[in-house]
């Protein structure tokens, strides 16, 4: 299972802070961030828009990750908009 978290505007737009995806749902055992985005984009236009927005950021296990980063069983993935703290 992998956990996928959404923050801030994306959390509100998608109406969820966290989803869990069973490995059995996924095509490959080790998929990339790009592949996870493609998988989740099947959930609907809103998901596709949020995940594929140019400035959407991704973290895997709380480290910033690019599209080519691999995701493994048990990982925590997060998608979020540009940060605005401080």
């Amino acid at each position, binding site marked *: 299972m992998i956990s996928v*978290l959404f*923050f*801030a*505007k994306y*959390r509100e737009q998608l109406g969820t802070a966290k989803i869990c995806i069973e490995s059995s749902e996924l095509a490959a055992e080790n998929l990339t961030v790009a592949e996870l985005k493609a998988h989740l984009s099947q959930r609907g236009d809103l998901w596709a828009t949020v995940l594929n927005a140019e*400035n959407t950021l991704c*973290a895997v296990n*709380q*480290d*910033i990750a690019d599209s080519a980063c691999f995701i493994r069983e048990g990982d925590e993935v*997060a998608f*979020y*908009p*540009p*940060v*605005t*703290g*401080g």
Partner: protein
Amino acid sequence: MHSLVRVSADDFDVGAECDALRALSRRSGAIAQFVGVMRDSNQGDDVLTMELEHYPGMTERRISEIIERAAARWPILAATVIHRVGLLHPQDQIVFVGVSAGHRHDAFQACEFIMDFLKTEAPFWKKERTPSGERWVDARDTDQQALARWQTEKA
């Protein structure tokens, strides 16, 4: 190098944080500090309250990592970063960055470096409540531009 990172809904006491930094090292000659404060307007609109969201765990890790980068670049003795989350009102304190060093320029540089990277890398998000409703604050280009200095300017 001593480092303290705290993310919390609680307010902080700048004097107590400064005293703590000062007490950590007898070699400290300079403490540079930054306090971010909530303004009562943004982009021409009144802002009544603000709600700060963060990514628990990752936020603290990113900030610690930013402090480590600053410590690798300037000879600093200690650094403290405190960031509030939750509901804030105009004139509330939002963030504290304090850096202790032997000499003042190192303390100033490291403090501003930490603040600039916190602004662009630490996962916090602000939602403003204005008289016409709520809105998420957009990231500012000027915050990205502020980083350019740290690539070109000699420490």
